[in-house]
């Protein structure tokens, strides 16, 4: 009985002692950011980073460098891409997510778990073999040989498997490969490990995976040329420290920071931005766009912790500035015409929105102006945009010309301004009887002015394109700003300001 009491008491003491040790260990290392509430000052708080175990080697180096430079602790949480995704979904915690390939990020994005996706590197589908290629595997047909034991990553569970199946189904070779596959593994590293221990002779994997396998080499097959995937880092929707998370994400994807490590680890890295602690993004935007994008830009600055120096002006003036050598990172033009004047700087614009010209008149339309023709009435005081200084002026002249009223109307034009806002102000001041402006310029003036539609003239509609200059050191950040501009909230403000939405959001991701 005594002995038993001693053992029971002893076990309680041991239990208590061990729990105390665990707790004091944990106190020494601080608590993960799971418990951190969002505060204005995010400095110094740790970030929780769900990282695919396959990226461990490179990510540990980057995190060590980041922590040494900025002092912020990153809690690296490793696991399989799918496991991490489930954890992200169930716990609603975590600031960053880096799966083995971007297919998981797309799922996460569809589930609204991830907001920003920052590209890191490309991976190609290759055939891994043992060093020296003892089975002399050089073509796809070699994989069908009886003496070759082939392992693949599961085509339902892994990206590399999915890509392989897609490509070979197109060429009609999938069934043959499926038959010659000895085993399917749940991850690409398991397939590579099979090769390492000699359980397989060939494995279909991503080239980047093999960097940590010095005893393996790979064969590139022409069939897999189109089989590339991307490694990308996602910033979660639920993060309470978006600025800190994006600061780290920018560090990882900066061409002179994290990407250097990725390149060393055998990844074909993306271009990446040039590292800057607080990047300054310059954006030239036509002044008509100001009310539609102003809040979005502000929110973007807030979330990213970057500065966006936006210059709003008539597009003619902006083009002149660019031709004079002042090149912004991104340019949001009032009309495609003013984008086409700088094709070298902005070769790949995306059309975002449309805005139509209207005739504004005083409330109640006392002059009874019903269309372009009525602007030719004698004695009218008309204001229009300046042809050279802004897209609106250019579109207006086009419209007059197409409508066959250019000469007569120009006789009534008393003022030409570089922006539509100025014309609206002059209308409100009573110095004009009518003006030709964008519908978006009239937002908020409904109590004083009426707008008359210009019917039947295609050219009275202006299309606003957005583009990023390829030479920009902040191209990635500028493309994230574009994504923000394409967000649902931003679309609402475009619509509220009288714009029509044009861009297809799905295709807008690769704008850079």
């Amino acid at each position, binding site marked *: *009985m005594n002995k038993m009491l001693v*053992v029971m008491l002893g076990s309680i003491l041991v239990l208590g002692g*061990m729990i105390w040790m665990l707790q004091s*260990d*944990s106190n020494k290392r601080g608590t993960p950011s799971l418990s951190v509430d969002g505060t204005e000052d995010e400095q110094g708080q740790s970030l929780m980073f769900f990282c695919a175990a396959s990226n461990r080697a490179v990510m540990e180096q980057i995190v060590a460098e980041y922590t040494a430079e900025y002092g912020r602790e990153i809690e690296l949480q490793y696991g399989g891409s799918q496991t991490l995704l489930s954890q992200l979904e169930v716990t609603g915690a975590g600031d960053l997510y880096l799966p083995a390939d971007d297919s998981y990020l797309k799922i996460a994005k569809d589930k609204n778990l991830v907001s920003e996706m920052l590209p890191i590197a490309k991976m190609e589908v290759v055939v891994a073999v043992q060093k020296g290629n003892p089975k002399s595997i050089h073509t796809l047909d070699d994989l069908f040989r009886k003496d070759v034991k082939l392992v693949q990553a599961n085509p339902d569970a892994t990206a590399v498997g999915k890509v392989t199946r897609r490509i070979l189904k197109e060429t009609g070779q999938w069934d043959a490969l499926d038959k010659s596959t000895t085993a399917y593994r749940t991850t690409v*590293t398991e397939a590579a*490990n099979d090769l390492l*221990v000699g359980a397989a002779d060939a494995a279909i994997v991503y080239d980047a995976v093999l960097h940590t396998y010095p005893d393996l080499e790979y064969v590139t097959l022409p069939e897999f040329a189109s089989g590339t995937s991307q490694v990308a880092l996602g910033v979660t929707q639920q993060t309470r420290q978006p600025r800190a998370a994006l600061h780290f994400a920018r560090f990882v994807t900066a061409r002179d920071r994290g990407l250097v490590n990725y390149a060393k680890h055998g990844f074909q890295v993306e271009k990446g931005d040039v590292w800057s602690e607080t990047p300054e993004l310059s954006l030239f935007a036509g002044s008509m766009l100001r009310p539609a994008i102003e809040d979005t830009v502000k929110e973007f600055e807030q979330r990213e912790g970057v500065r966006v120096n936006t210059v709003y002006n008539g597009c003619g003036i902006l083009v002149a500035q660019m031709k004079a050598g002042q090149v912004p990172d991104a340019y949001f033009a009032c009309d495609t015409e003013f984008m086409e004047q700088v094709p070298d700087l902005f070769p790949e614009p995306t059309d975002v929105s449309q805005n139509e010209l209207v005739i504004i008149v005083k409330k109640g339309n006392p002059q009874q102006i019903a269309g372009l023709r009525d602007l030719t009435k004698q004695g009218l005081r008309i204001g229009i945009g300046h042809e050279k200084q802004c897209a609106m002026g250019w579109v207006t002249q086009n419209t007059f010309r197409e409508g066959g009223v250019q000469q007569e109307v120009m006789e009534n034009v008393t003022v030409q301004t570089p922006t539509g806002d100025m014309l609206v102000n002059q209308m409100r001041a009573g110095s004009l009887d009518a003006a030709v402006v964008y519908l978006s310029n009239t937002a908020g003036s409904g109590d004083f002015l009426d707008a008359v539609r210009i019917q039947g003239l295609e050219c009275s509609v202006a299309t606003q394109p957005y583009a990023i200059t390829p030479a920009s050191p902040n191209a990635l950040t500028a493309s994230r700003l574009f994504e923000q501009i394409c967000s649902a909230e931003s679309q609402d403000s475009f619509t509220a300001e009288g714009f029509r939405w044009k861009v297809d959001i799905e295709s807008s991701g690769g704008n850079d």
Partner: protein
Amino acid sequence: MTEHAINRTGEAKSHRTRRRSDLPFFLVMSGISSCFILLIVLLLAADLMFTSLEDFKAAVMKPEIQSAFRLTILSCTVAALLSIWVATPLGYLLSRYRFPGRLLIDTIVDIPIVLPPLVLGLSLLILFHLPIGGWELEAWLRDDVGFPVTYRWPAVILAQFSVSCAFAVRTMRVTFDQINPRAEDVARTLGCSRGQAFLQVALPQAWRGMIAATTIAWARALGEFGPILVFAGATRMRTEVLSTTVFLELSIGQLNAAVAVSLLMVVMAAIVLVVLRVLGTGLTS
């Protein structure tokens, strides 16, 4: 007496017969047994041949692995001790009493054993983060109690405990099943309460079973991997136990390191099992 009566020739003959009949017995028995022993020995030998002393040393010297080693020892021991504290009364109740819902409880106890490990981890994760009318267990523990669980060491222990306790309960139940309840009944007729009969009569007889249950719980906790990965994560220096180290090393193709850590686990397990066995013998003697 009878042996004296048998003549020498007969004695020798019967000896020979006995030897002849025993030999196949031992051959068959040891032949079958050695298959399994040989398999384990070969596994270990293959591991040893795959890795080298340098790999082993390099692995042991890594601070991450030292930290994982410490966490493994502490968490497994805590999980095993908690398991035996829970398993003893539960095993006793299931063994001695017939009560309504006994079959149901018996089945519930086995669920962690049959459940796939990842599912168990996911279930724990969901349990702690399921919002019930705006209330969430993890949020309550974190904000009101000040003791967050997910992705911390308590999650490691809870994940280990969930499985190892089920095994401990099984063992304790069988232990009590094998102890004749008559002794406890007699004690009660002599004036013992149920509690006294349990503490003073049943428990001392169950020592060997308790040691076995602790051993099995500890070993299960050591091998636990799936639920820990999902519920506690695999954060280096924080929730990384040796089984997750093996996974982390495997996932970047560091097979040597993975095997070295596995061997470290084997050594560690062997030491703990021997110590528990010696302890068990000491207590029962």
